[in-house]
């Protein structure tokens, strides 16, 4: 009997193993050697769009947007609206809801087709906040994919001769999503009441400060014009506004009472008065959005800053959070953003946007579940990891289109290595600040092999350098220190004063052990990456350790200057442009950037100090050409010093889009500055079933 049991058990285990390990063989496309990342959608994906491949010899570089993307203006003679709104019958005519005819914004990029109305865009979310906010965010101005800036909520703007006064013109007749007029008063009131009094927890943003750090003066000229006046010349208000603050308004008609209570609480003479005003603010906030906040600080931060996360708050976005119970909480299991009937953009044929009636969000626990829902058509859009492409090819039950956008990091963020140049330990500080050491760590790795393994062949070797299409790109830089030469690496290390010890690893010249303690964030694959890197470091005589931590611990350690060296840093180096967002590239510009750590102008030396000084010079330079020249000098310093090391070229951002969704731009750049997928202008998407 026991034998029978053993047999049954063995059989069952074999069966179970066979089921688990069954190889998938359905002609999966394997990435080509050159690392081209364009992929054909699944076999059953009839009618899918494949973006043009950018598969040069170096392969897989981010798509470079064509230079002349600015569309020709079109004349729209009449307007029409979604049947959804017509059927509601409560909104009056579309002409009354749009701005005056000449001020209506027409979306007519060349890739856009005239769409059809209706349907819902199904999305998933493991977190609310920006995930839902960025795609629908509207700024005073907006970036195009080529980095130029164009009007958006602002119809136009003028700058006076010495760049101290910016005059912004709004769209006449534009309305909030509740139908109230949107005027300069909302913009001025927002700045004067909310920003200057720091009611939204962000206070006066850098874009509103002049060279002395003094806040600008914002004044209303008429209902559709306001001015922003600086004490000293301000050369980048428009771009900085789009990077720092984006929106420049709050619905005064909704928030005026609330703001008065909050100011009352802020300026209260004693605790009792403060508590009373606080209570009034909380009650008022609850009457606006139905949420009870802990105190008026929370009210301000949530309602004025994260406004799209709360129901009942008028916005000028294409979609607004539903006010219906069960659909109106971003912490809920399901919520939806419904079309704004007063949205002020139309397509080239005069159809009021957006086309799709609503965006629905289903809560998930992690992104993999989103991928699962994408496969069976329960989700329409997600950005995916590059290796998930094959999952989609193998298992999707619905046609899914893959679009490849450029990324803004310098090389692949996952394979960047940052040395803390401000580390307290003298030995390490000297070593990290020695370019020869960084070069040794760079060239001791066989990038070809490493890149092929870590990316399953999708990506090629690279360096932490701007990618093609980004400011500062040069082929020379992107191949700097990328040759594989262990002997040279050892010579360089010895040149740094390291001495080979008896254990086969280098020691400091005073005999103490040199150990490179590498940290990384947990759960992002860095442990595997390190396992691949370690043999190379060992071969070069560099002793390393590795430990991964939760992200919050990493941030605490970074702030405390305890991180020595980080793989896949929390804030990778690189962005679209060092002028627009220098945070990760200039010491002192942000917290939590490992490579410059706690370094400031006072502690920086040499080229690092030079870099900081150039940034300061940039801030007070008016002329665009001069500014670009300074930026190039800054990037040249980066190239010369290669303060951070990268091993793999930047992975493109992969958008997986259900093929029923049309008007998704095939080319673009995924960058926070451009609001991530915001550049895809989801209000122009439509559904073709």
């Amino acid at each position, binding site marked *: *009997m026991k034998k*029978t*049991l053993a047999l*049954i*058990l063995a059989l*069952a285990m074999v069966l179970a193993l066979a*089921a*688990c390990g069954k190889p998938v063989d359905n002609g999966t496309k394997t990435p080509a050697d050159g690392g081209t990342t364009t992929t054909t959608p699944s076999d059953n994906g009839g009618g899918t769009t494949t973006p043009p491949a950018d598969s040069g010899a170096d392969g897989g570089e981010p798509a470079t947007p064509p230079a002349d993307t600015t569309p020709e203006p079109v004349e729209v003679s009449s307007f029409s609206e979604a049947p959804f709104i017509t059927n509601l019958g409560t909104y009056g005519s579309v002409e009354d809801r749009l701005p005056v005819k000449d001020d209506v914004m027409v979306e007519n990029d060349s890739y856009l087709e005239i769409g059809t109305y209706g349907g819902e865009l*199904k999305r998933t979310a493991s*977190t609310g*906040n*920006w*995930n839902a906010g*960025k795609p629908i965010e509207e700024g005073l101005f907006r970036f195009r994919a080529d980095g130029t800036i164009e009007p958006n909520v602002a119809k136009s703007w003028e700058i006076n001769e010495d760049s101290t006064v910016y005059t912004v013109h709004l769209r006449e007749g534009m309305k909030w999503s509740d139908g109230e007029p949107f005027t300069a008063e909302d913009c001025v009131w927002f700045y004067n009441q909310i920003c200057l009094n720091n009611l939204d*927890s*962000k206070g006066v943003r850098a874009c509103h400060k002049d060279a002395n750090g003094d806040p600008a003066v914002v004044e209303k000229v008429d209902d559709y014009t306001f001015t922003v006046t600086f004490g000293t010349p301000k050369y980048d208000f428009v771009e900085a506004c789009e990077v720092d603050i984006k929106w420049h308004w709050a619905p005064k008609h909704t928030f005026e009472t609330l703001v008065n209570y909050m100011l009352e609480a802020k300026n209260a003479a004693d605790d009792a008065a403060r508590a009373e005003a606080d209570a009034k603010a909380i009650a008022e906030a609850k009457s606006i959005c139905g*949420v*009870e*906040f*802990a*105190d008026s*600080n*929370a009210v301000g*931060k*949530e309602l004025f800053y994260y406004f799209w996360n709360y129901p009942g708050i008028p916005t000028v976005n294409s979609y607004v959070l539903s006010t219906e119970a*069960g*659909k109106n909480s971003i*912490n809920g*299991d*399901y919520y*939806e953003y419904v079309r704004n009937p007063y949205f002020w953009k139309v397509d080239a044929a005069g159809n009021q946007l957006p086309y799709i009636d609503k965006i*629905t969000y*289903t*809560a*998930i*626990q*992690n992104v993999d*579940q989103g991928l*699962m*829902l994408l*496969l*069976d058509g*329960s989700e329409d859009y997600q950005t995916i990891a590059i290796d998930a492409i094959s999952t989609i090819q193998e*298992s999707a*039950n619905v046609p899914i289109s893959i679009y490849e956008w450029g990324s803004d990091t310098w090389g692949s963020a996952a394979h960047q290595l940052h040395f803390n140049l401000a580390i307290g330990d003298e030995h390490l500080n000297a070593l990290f600040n020695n370019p020869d050491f960084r070069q040794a760590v760079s060239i001791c790795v066989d990038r070809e092999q490493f890149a092929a393994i870590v990316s399953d062949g999708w990506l090629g070797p690279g360096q932490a350098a701007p990618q093609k299409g980004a400011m500062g790109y040069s082929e020379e830089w992107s191949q700097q220190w990328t040759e594989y030469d262990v002997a040279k690496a050892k010579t360089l290390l010895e040149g740094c004063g390291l001495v080979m010890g008896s254990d086969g690893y280098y020691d400091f010249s005073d005999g103490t052990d040199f150990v490179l303690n590498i940290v990384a964030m947990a759960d992002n694959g860095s442990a595997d990456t390190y396992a691949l890197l370690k043999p190379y470091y060992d071969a070069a005589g560099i002793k390393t350790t590795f430990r991964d931590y*939760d*992200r*919050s*611990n*990493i*941030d*605490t*350690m970074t702030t405390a200057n305890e991180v020595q060296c980080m793989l896949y840093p*929390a*804030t990778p180096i690189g962005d679209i442009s060092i002028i627009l967002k220098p*945070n990760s590239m200039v010491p002192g510009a*942000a*917290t939590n950037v490992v490579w410059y750590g706690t370094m400031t102008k006072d502690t920086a030396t040499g080229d690092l100090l030079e870099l900081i000084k150039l940034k300061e010079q940039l801030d007070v330079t008016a002329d665009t050409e001069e500014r670009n020249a300074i930026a190039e000098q800054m990037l040249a310093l980066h190239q010369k010093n290669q303060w951070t090391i990268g091993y793999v070229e930047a992975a493109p951002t992969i958008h997986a889009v259900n093929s029923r969704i049309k008007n998704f731009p095939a080319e673009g750049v995924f960058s*926070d500055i451009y609001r*991530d997928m915001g550049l895809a202008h989801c209000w122009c998407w439509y559904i073709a079933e």
Partner: protein
Amino acid sequence: MLRYIGKRILLFIPTILIISFVIFFVIQLPPGDYVTSYVASLSAQGEVFTEADIAYLRQSFGLDDPWYVQYFNWMKGIITEGNFGYSFNYGRGVWSVIMDRLGLTMGVSFVILLFQYAVSLPVGIYCANHQYSAGDYIWSFIGFIGTATPNFLLAILVMFWVYKATGQMYLGLFSTEMMQNGMSWQYVPEFLGRCLIPLFVIGTSGTCSIIRTVRAQMLDEQARQYTLTARAKGCSEATITYKYALRSALNPVVSGLAGSLNTIFSGSTVSAIVMNLQIQGPVLLAALKSQDMYLAGTIVMIQAVLVVTGMLLSDIALAWLDPRIRFSERG
């Protein structure tokens, strides 16, 4: 008996207080606090924070006090106002967050519990009565597989097979349509269908131990003299099994119920995350990860209360079920 129960209930209070203290201490133990993880999560989405922003956040969340002051204020709120504090993650009272998912969690867990007992009791009895039969082996085999396979893995496999077979990804208990339109009778069949995978995955994990316990106990009892006597007197096998042997055999099963109360409240965690179930477990995990400490603290504390209550209830149930315990207590 009443005095005994009273004494036990009085002992509750210091136990819970000590537990709450330990919980709070442990939750705040990792470096950083809610603000750290909050800032980390938002800066991962591209938001930029300065040191001043962070200090301001810390102050507005009341996290600039030392942890024991936070603990004291929290306990004070609970005892004097019944206020369990504020969930940073959800931006509202802890109690309302817990209440959100309580009904569904209890429903799901209770059904799973019923499933476990409904399956394993008869199977256990059958296996005992048919020891070493093919049926005994098959059931034991299935039970062991259920226990030996980690739930989350089983969940992934089952979801994958179901997806391959039906083309539908059954993730979560509600379809998007249900959540859009609210629950109504027309969705009941689909809802029940969606319950099958969790029921199977989580249910099978617990059945094996119950089957084995019941089987072993029943076999023990069947060898006892009183069983022999009953059989000699001509009692039917059904009477012997259900009236005599089973009642004795149930003791350890009933003691096992003590832990179930807590399970019913929180539901399983890892499987719930894998299957995207809208129950309490994932909320607790998320709260612990982000150091949303009042929420995490309250959930863990309620669990502790339930464990303690469960112990008491199972003691009482045992006394009721087994006269021997009753009499020894009286004696």
